[in-house]
């Protein structure tokens, strides 16, 4: 048996385990398994609206997931995509609030740039602290998530508040200025196209440019980089900026394509899910796109299953956590199978 084949078997075993876990959980609540699974798949593939809904959720996951993957490639553990996403959303909202009357193209170009920079700077803070002082980025990125949430809350009650509203929401983006609808009668917007374009750009940047090569080298062996004259600091700074920037664009998309105004809680943990997306996608852009679509489908399906068969949608969270743990434990669980015959 070839090495790849053995690896494939181990992944298949993990998939079977997760499926069994799902069936067990469904049986635990006393539901009909067939009905639950029908509800799950019907909720994903049942109508053009539901299929579109998967891609509505996939767009931010792809962008933030790409960001996390770029960071992981250079050895920067970015747990802060959630905060970076919110900062991107804040920057886009500030752009259309502060510059009213801009034509659509100019507004979107300026807004995406602002979102990229805001998210990028939010990741650059822990990135620079790691590059310059060697401070661990893990805690810093988590802290900056909460600080970003705080900033959103403060701005929604002060500078960005819609004075005409009682609740803390920002002024609404004028009709026709946001991302275009791709399909009538669904919520699908051009954010998904931007996400796919970014995936292609990130692929070329990481695998086909010398900067990308240096970035990967920094992630693989910082000490060797120092000996070869590749700057570890520069690698970390570029990757953190790009990583946060991509998450920032995800935030822009949520405002420009979906909510059309800034409110608290625009992200149902997209930033944390993005880490799982990057891990499942093997930090490769194509893998990220597939993993993000899969996770989005899982979430949409689980909600539909709740409506159709009364199975709690918390099941999606359980399955995701379990799959990640199984993948992390894969090499130990399948030690015998994966052992080289030499």
């Amino acid at each position, binding site marked *: 048996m070839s090495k790849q084949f053995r690896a494939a078997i181990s992944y298949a075993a993990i998939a079977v385990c997760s499926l069994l876990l799902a069936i067990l*959980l469904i049986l*635990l*609540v006393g539901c009909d398994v067939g009905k639950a699974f029908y509800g799950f798949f019907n909720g994903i593939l049942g109508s053009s609206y539901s299929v579109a809904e998967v891609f509505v959720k996939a767009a931010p996951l792809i962008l933030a997931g790409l960001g996390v993957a770029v960071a992981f490639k250079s050895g920067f*553990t970015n*747990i802060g995509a959630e905060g970076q996403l919110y900062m991107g959303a804040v920057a886009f909202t500030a752009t259309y609030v502060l510059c009213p009357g801009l034509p659509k193209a100019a507004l979107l170009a300026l807004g995406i740039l602002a979102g990229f920079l805001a998210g990028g700077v939010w990741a650059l*803070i822990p990135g620079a*602290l790691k590059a310059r*002082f*060697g*401070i*661990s980025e*893990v*805690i*810093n990125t*988590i*802290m*900056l998530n*909460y*600080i970003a*949430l*705080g*900033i959103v*809350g*403060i701005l929604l*009650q*002060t500078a960005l508040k819609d004075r005409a509203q009682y609740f803390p929401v920002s002024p609404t983006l004028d009709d026709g200025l946001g991302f275009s609808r791709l399909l009538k009668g669904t919520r699908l917007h051009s954010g998904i196209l931007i996400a796919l374009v970014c995936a292609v750009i990130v692929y070329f940047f990481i695998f086909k440019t010398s900067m990308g090569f240096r970035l990967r080298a920094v992630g693989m062996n910082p000490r060797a980089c120092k000996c070869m004259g590749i700057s570890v600091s520069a690698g970390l700074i570029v990757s953190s900026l790009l990583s946060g920037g991509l998450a920032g664009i995800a935030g822009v998309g949520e405002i420009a394509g979906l909510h059309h105004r800034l409110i608290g809680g625009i992200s149902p943990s997209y930033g*944390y899910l993005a*880490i*799982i997306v990057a*891990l499942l996608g093997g930090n490769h852009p194509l893998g990220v796109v597939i993993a993000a679509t899969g996770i989005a489908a899982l979430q949409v399906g689980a909600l539909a299953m709740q409506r159709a068969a009364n199975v*709690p949608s*918390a*099941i*999606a*969270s*359980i*399955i*995701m*956590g*379990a799959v*990640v*743990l199984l993948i*992390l*434990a894969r*090499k*130990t669980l399948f030690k015998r199978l994966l052992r080289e015959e030499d």
Partner: protein
Amino acid sequence: METAIATITTFLAASVRMAAPLTIAGIGEACSERTGVINIGLEAIMLLGAFCGFMVTFWTASSGLGMLAGAGGGMLVALLHGVLSVKCRANQNIVGLALNFLVLGLTSFLFLKAFGQSTVLPTCATVPTRAIPLLSRLPILGKAIFNQNIFVYIMLILVVGVSALFYKTEWGVNMTAVGEHPRAADTAGLNVFRVRYMACALNGLLGGLAGTYVTLAQLGFFMEDVTAGKGYMALVAVILGRRDPLRIMLASLLIGFAEAMQFQLQTMGIPVPSQVFSTIPYVAAVFALLFSIGKSRDPAALGVPYERARR
């Protein structure tokens, strides 16, 4: 004057109460991190602790049993993290993150399974306040510290006890050795894996206990994501307190103070966005990390799995 003292007393008492779960969980995390295992799944530990604590108290009407169950639940999560980090040598941060998802889903699922979709929240009695004789009659401090619920007293005992463990016993030295240089510790005959598993278990035990504070002392009921970021808050306390029990308690008091301040201002109707205060501890943590350069180092092997058979 009288009212001012009364206000200060209530204020201090509230800060101390809010500091208790953060300190208890933070001390547990400090044990784990000293041996080199960083667990950002502290939120998951606390959440399962809060859940198990509530369920057992609800069924048995005994908050003592509930606290034990909560500690057990927390230990389960921490040991799962321990096995994956120590035996499977997985990325500890990702394990912690995955556990957060897993436990968040699991507790909501089991809670719905147990009680169904009802509009009435099932509740249990909260733990009573117990005054310590004599000490509770001290001015200001008596009310603030010695007229509290059992969690506050556990916090005080832990600060003294774990400080002694860290600085006065051989176990403490062993933990530091395993966290700083596992290879040397192994060569000296210490069982690196066992020390780490023990520290993980202790982390889970304390974290789970801290989780029960939320359901058994603060609220008296359980709901989805009931700990709402308290685990991350405890991580902040560990950073600010540089993994020292006493300093962790002081940092937790600071966070508790900021929280109490926020409630106070809201009840007084002062229009400051509540996030101004709730964000302060996080900003402080970032600066604490920045200013601790050179002063307090992380344990050298923090987050690094140990492999025996590798040079």
